[in-house]
């Protein structure tokens, strides 16, 4: 068996089995609640709060912003649980005691969450259309699908970076919660970016989701793939940077954990 086949197999098995092994949401009721009820709750909360606070009929702004932002549930929490779950399962020493390709091991943890996050956003859009009057009749749907996928990829890349922290600390869920709520503001999901102070605008530009949400709004407003293409490429680029940074941190933390003897600390 050649090296490529071995690594692809490791990627696929790591993807599937680590998802099943570590993600308790696979219990059908909990999974359904997280995928169906939670996006609706988040959207209803921000739609009614936002339209009440701004006293304007801008429901679509909040529906689209929160529908896309919901990918952070899989991208941030899901991916971190997949990477960090090995600490709780006590499997970290056994993983790092193998000669497995670390790139496959690392990125394999995120792949199912990309699919999962994409499904979550689609469900949120369905809520938007059926309950909150979102009109997609002028939308290039394949382009919207691509935008959702790219945005989920870049968010999962940030999740991988966060997940790396779980190799050296057991307090990573605190960091994740903070990041998730910051994304609600900084990504432009609920506040227009140009209404934010300059320093917040600058920060929003280096986060995933910002361009994905803007591109989704543009597509729903009737623009085409050509107009949003540059935004998608930048979103992808941001994901690439976070993913690469995450991998190097994963590698570095493995070394640090072996120096400190902290692989099994829970």
């Amino acid at each position, binding site marked *: *068996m050649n090296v490529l086949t*071995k690594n692809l*197999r*490791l990627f696929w*098995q*790591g993807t599937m*089995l*680590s998802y*099943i*092994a*570590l993600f*308790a949401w*696979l219990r059908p009721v909990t999974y359904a609640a997280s995928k169906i009820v939670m996006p609706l709750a988040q959207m209803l909360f921000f739609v009614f709060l936002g339209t009440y606070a701004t006293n304007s009929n801008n429901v679509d702004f909040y529906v689209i912003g929160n529908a896309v932002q919901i990918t952070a549930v899989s991208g941030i929490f899901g991916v971190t649980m997949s990477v960090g779950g090995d600490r709780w*399962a*006590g*499997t970290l*020493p*056994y*993983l*790092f*005691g*193998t*000669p*497995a390709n670390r790139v496959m*091991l690392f990125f394999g943890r995120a792949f199912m969450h990309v699919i999962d996050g994409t499904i979550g956003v689609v469900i949120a859009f369905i809520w938007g259309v059926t309950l909150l009057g979102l009109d997609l009749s002028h939308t290039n749907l394949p382009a919207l699908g691509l935008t959702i996928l790219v945005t989920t990829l870049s968010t999962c890349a940030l999740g991988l970076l966060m997940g790396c922290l779980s190799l050296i600390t057991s307090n990573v869920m605190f960091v994740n919660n903070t990041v998730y709520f910051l994304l609600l503001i900084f990504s432009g999901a609920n506040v227009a970016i140009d209404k934010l102070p300059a320093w917040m605008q600058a920060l929003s530009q280096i986060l995933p989701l910002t361009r994905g949400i803007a591109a989704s709004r543009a597509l729903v407003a009737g623009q085409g793939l050509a107009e949003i293409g540059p935004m998608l490429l930048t979103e992808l680029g941001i994901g690439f940077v976070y993913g690469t940074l995450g991998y190097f941190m994963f590698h570095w933390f493995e070394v640090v954990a*072996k*120096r*400190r*003897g902290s*692989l099994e600390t829970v």
Partner: protein
Amino acid sequence: MNAIEVNHLKRVYRAAIGVFKRSIKEVVAVDDISFSVEKGELFGLLGPNGAGKTTTVKMLATLLIPTAGNISIMGFDVVKQANEVRKRIGFIFGGERGLYWRLSAEDNLRYFASLYGADPEVSKKRIPYLLEMVGLKGRGNERVEGYSRGMKQRLHVARTLLHDPEVLFLDEPTIGLDPVGAREFRQVILDLQTEKKTILLTTHYMFEADALCDRIAVIDKGCTVALDTPGGLKKHVSDLSIVEMETFGAPEEVLNGIRALPFVDAVSVEDQDQRQLLKVQTERGAEAVPDLMAALDGQRVGRVIVREPTLEDAYVRLVGGKV
């Protein structure tokens, strides 16, 4: 070439203490340990809690970087050639953790096989073989969360044998197992030895080490204090007899009085519910009994026997009576 070579191994842990005024505390877990293990040998590593056994195994398994000294496994350095070492070793730490509980045993093995880059066709045959070998035939499709502790330990053995490693590190593998489970596990270890695996075993159970190991290193405070065959180690106490005395709630000052007697070499105490079993090492044998009874100062005493020393008694003497 030896399978394992350990030379002047040292490991210091550094921990930060305090919130505002932080200071670094250094703990020497392993100070100076050296030993070598021949291919196919079953080698024991004994020592009291905190002696450095698990730290040593972690360094052998490439999971911890030594502060000083070096280790080679099958000729490969564990730090510089870690991946070559990992292909040739398997390891188990005692306890139930280290498996994906929501997966079946077969899925656990399938995943770890892919981590070792095993050929899927080979794994397809090897996984049922290993499950049968460790007594889990017919249970492979059950989720691990429903397994008993002993079954999980045996699954760990199957996991560690997936890539057919030449060297195995078993760190207290029978800890927490019931007597039947521990006996079955010891049989698995003996079966592995017949397959010419090189095995390094750490254990607290002296009879286990005596029954299984070809040679034993006793370590204390991070240093090797003895290295010999079980028979050779017993010679350390061949001049002694052991007086076992059953007492009921003897206070610490009375026990210290016995320890201070000039003819007493070492004393270990086993608490058994309301009872204590004192094991007194002495050159005087049965002649020491009246003086020991006097030193117990009116404490209630049950059964008293005088017997020949065992490996455990040799161990107690070597580590200074700390059991």
